């Protein structure tokens, strides 16, 4: 296309100064990195600290051999950046890569390989895995290709939502697994477009934030094992192995075969925002898909191995991620790369936040030792473009660093609170010594986050990694045989309890107890201070049949079975009302930890109780926690919440704390009661007949709201 045709006035830099392989070229703009459409052509910029020569290799989509190779003239390099503008390149259907030659005398960490064509670390889209699970050409020497993309999506007036963090209810889901099952009934199962059709479900549930498991381009074929039980191929289904940090996963797009995944993903974000749902991405900067010494050369390794990866003095890969390599996040170049990437997603994709996989690795210096002031963490905390983004750390890594409560948060980062998960699980199975810790977790973990407030704590009982909620109460042990590692993989310490029978059973008592435990967990989670996170499917009792590490299963084991929404409608209704209750009571969402100062009506913000009011039992054998919270109601004025959880196998009669004059106890939830009396719509809770005491059933929980009767 001509310059004039685009309506761009002629600029001196829109004319070539030289010709290479039949294309007009000129020295390019070093910034921004990557391939950028410019008037009349495309600007390519790539950096490598050690390269002695770089050439741009151009392919047409679907063709194995390149149609042109353009060596960067030496004078097109500034510092370590090679930049060239290529004119007359029709960007539709063009794929590109780089051939990089190392120095004559390599350093120990170098892995330059001019026989390979490298992908662009800044590629905005990638091809090669365009359709999920489609058979691939295993002999393709350049299987993952960088693709030119135009940034012309019409966002209309969309902006990141800026939901107040205290109001968030996070819902962790896998884009493909959420709608891949035929029961989803969507027109494009397993895709971004399919997810849009389920937005009404999310709205009805009441969640206002989805945390998407990895959506950066990855290769679902990067493992080569089969299910020993069925003989089926095992996939990298979860996708914690990034190929393209700037590229949305094509195989998650119904339009991936047309290279439209960026637009389809943007449309998903826009539609979620329109529904008031924020989008958090699970990002994996601790390692890359290049693996260890035996892994493939995709991009970083052939550009600047010693810069991008933590290497031993001998040049081997440190493996703090448990996956072969460790991304060198606190190297200044890599830090800038991560920052560029997150800014791109926040700016171009309107993403509302990020959850950092194995984030403790981001604290490690270049020698692997944890840093007191890790520059990457600090940079992200203060970045202007990311200012309103949630930053959530998975505050541990596979190298033994566990930083829940001590992750350097700069008063800004939140953490997946692994101790919340463990405390809740221990209490619900009535482990000795678990009552006191549960109490601390309910009020937002002041022991861990005293100065940072409750929002530092992302509370959860389950997440993608581990048992589902239904399985937590149906299995004592993991059952991962289908993963092909003789049940050796996955966590052994699940704090789970099968409620009397391992796995499926018809015993009505066991089934009733499991149902109650699921409600107990959801009630406690959604009435805890901090940011709650629900694993998709837990609200309808999704099972993985005891598999607590379903990373490799692309099928019914890991997909959302939409039939459950009806079959387990009772649990779904219960969870919905709990989410609604949270929304209706600002006290539960308070950023500050409650204390003994007055909350409302002469009562402290928080007090603890037992069988007798005011007499909590914090002894080792206690299986009872009863909390009274007093504070300001949504419409002003005071209100009171009473939450009592009984993990004992016998019912307990509890004396209720006295309310100020005029206030009356109303019953919001009683997990020991049969539906529909197990939960009531917030605002319409019936008053308790007996205002002085309440019976909490065996392994059950109740929630009351104290307010004026009207």
């Amino acid at each position, binding site marked *: 296309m001509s310059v004039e045709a685009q309506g761009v006035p002629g600029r001196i830099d829109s004319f070539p100064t030289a010709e290479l392989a039949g294309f007009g070229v000129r020295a390019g703009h070093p910034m921004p990195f990557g391939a950028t459409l410019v008037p009349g052509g495309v600007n390519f910029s790539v950096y490598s600290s050690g390269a002695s020569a770089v050439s741009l290799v151009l392919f047409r989509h679907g063709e194995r051999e390149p149609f042109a190779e353009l060596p960067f003239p030496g004078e097109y390099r500034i510092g370590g950046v090679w930049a060239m503008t290529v004119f007359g390149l029709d960007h539709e259907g063009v794929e590109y890569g780089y051939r990089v030659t190392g120095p004559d005398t390599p350093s120990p960490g170098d892995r330059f390989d001019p026989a390979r064509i490298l992908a662009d670390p800044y590629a905005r889209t990638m091809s090669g895995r365009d359709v999920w699970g489609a058979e691939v050409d295993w002999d393709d020497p350049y299987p993952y290709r960088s693709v030119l993309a135009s940034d012309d999506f019409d966002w209309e007036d969309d902006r990141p939502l800026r939901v107040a963090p205290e109001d968030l209810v996070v819902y962790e889901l896998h884009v493909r697994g959420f709608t891949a099952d035929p029961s989803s009934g969507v027109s494009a199962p397993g895709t971004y477009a399919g997810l849009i059709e389920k937005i009404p479900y999310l709205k009805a549930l009441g969640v206002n934030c989805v945390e998407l498991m990895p959506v950066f381009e990855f290769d679902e074929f990067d493992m080569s094992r089969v299910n020993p039980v069925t003989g089926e191929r095992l996939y990298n289904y979860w996708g914690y192995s990034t190929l393209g940090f700037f590229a949305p996963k094509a195989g998650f797009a119904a339009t991936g075969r047309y290279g439209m995944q960026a637009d389809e993903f943007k449309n998903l974000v826009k539609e979620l925002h329109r529904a008031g749902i924020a989008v958090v991405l699970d990002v994996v900067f601790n390692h890359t898909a290049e693996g260890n010494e035996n892994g493939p050369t995709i991009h970083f390794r052939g550009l600047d191995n010693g810069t991008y990866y933590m290497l031993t003095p001998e040049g081997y890969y440190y493996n703090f991620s448990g996956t072969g390599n460790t991304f060198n996040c606190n190297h200044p170049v890599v830090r800038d790369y991560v920052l560029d990437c997150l800014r791109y997603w926040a700016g171009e994709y309107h993403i509302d936040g990020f959850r950092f996989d194995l984030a403790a690795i981001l604290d490690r210096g270049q020698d692997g030792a944890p840093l007191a002031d890790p520059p990457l963490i600090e940079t992200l905390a203060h970045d202007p473009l990311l200012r309103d983004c949630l930053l959530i750390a998975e505050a541990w890594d596979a190298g033994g660093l566990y930083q829940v*409560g*001590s992750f350097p948060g700069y008063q800004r980062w939140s953490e997946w609170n692994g101790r919340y998960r463990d405390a809740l699980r221990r209490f619900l199975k009535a482990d000795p*010594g678990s009552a*006191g*810790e549960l*109490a*601390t977790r309910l*009020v937002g973990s*002041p*022991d*861990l986050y*005293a100065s940072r407030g409750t929002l530092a704590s992302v509370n959860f009982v389950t997440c993608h990694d581990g048992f589902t909620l239904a399985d937590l109460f149906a299995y004592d042990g993991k059952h991962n045989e289908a993963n092909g590692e003789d049940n050796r993989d996955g966590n052994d310490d699940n704090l789970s309890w099968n409620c009397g029978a391992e796995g499926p059973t018809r015993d009505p008592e066991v089934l009733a107890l499991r149902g109650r435990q699921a409600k107990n967990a959801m009630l406690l989670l959604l009435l805890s201070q901090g940011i709650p996170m629900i694993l998709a499917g837990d609200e309808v009792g999704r099972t993985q049949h005891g598999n607590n590490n379903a990373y490799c299963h692309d099928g019914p084991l890991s997909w959302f079975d939409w039939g459950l929404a009806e079959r387990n409608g009772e649990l779904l209704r219960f969870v919905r009302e709990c989410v609604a209750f949270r929304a209706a009571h600002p006290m539960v969402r308070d950023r500050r*930890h409650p*204390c*003994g*100062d007055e909350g409302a009506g002469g009562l*402290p913000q*928080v*007090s*603890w109780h037992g069988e007798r009011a*005011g*007499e*909590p039992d*914090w002894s*080792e054998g206690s299986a009872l926690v009863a909390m009274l919270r007093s504070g300001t109601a949504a419409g002003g004025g005071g209100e009171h919440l009473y939450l009592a959880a009984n993990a004992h196998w016998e019912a307990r009669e509890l004396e209720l704390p006295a309310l100020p004059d005029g206030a009356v106890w109303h019953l919001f939830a009683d997990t020991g009661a049969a539906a529909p009396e197990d939960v009531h719509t917030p605002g319409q809770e019936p008053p308790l007949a007996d205002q002085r005491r309440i019976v909490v059933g065996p392994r059950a929980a109740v929630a009351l709201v104290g307010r004026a009767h009207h």
Partner: protein
Amino acid sequence: MERLRLPAEPESLDELMAYVQTLSALGGLTRTRAHWLRLAAEELIVNIITHGHRDRPGELELTGGVEPRRVWLRLSDAAPPFDPTAYEAVPDLERPLGERRPGGLGVYLARTVADEVRYEYSSGRNETTIIMNRV
């Protein structure tokens, strides 16, 4: 509350203090009283770690309890006897900062902000108890 026993070394301080924060939460202390409990506990714990166990490894044990009118926290260690309630080093409060020697503040602060500090030496252990009234 269950007891917490950790090596008497600086690396244990975060976890020891988390125990104290938990005790404050379970005791429903006001924000100010929780602050004083934390301060008193840190000062006495740091004193045990840096003086009592400076050259000898050992363990520090915390136990705590909530009573109707008060919260108590007991520090137990096997370092040489040290009675903070008998410690006379009240800093010269009127002397300008620039002329003071560092140190000597911690135990004084702990005794001042706690409602009560009790000390007992028995069976070769220092038993130091901090008491905070709940109201």
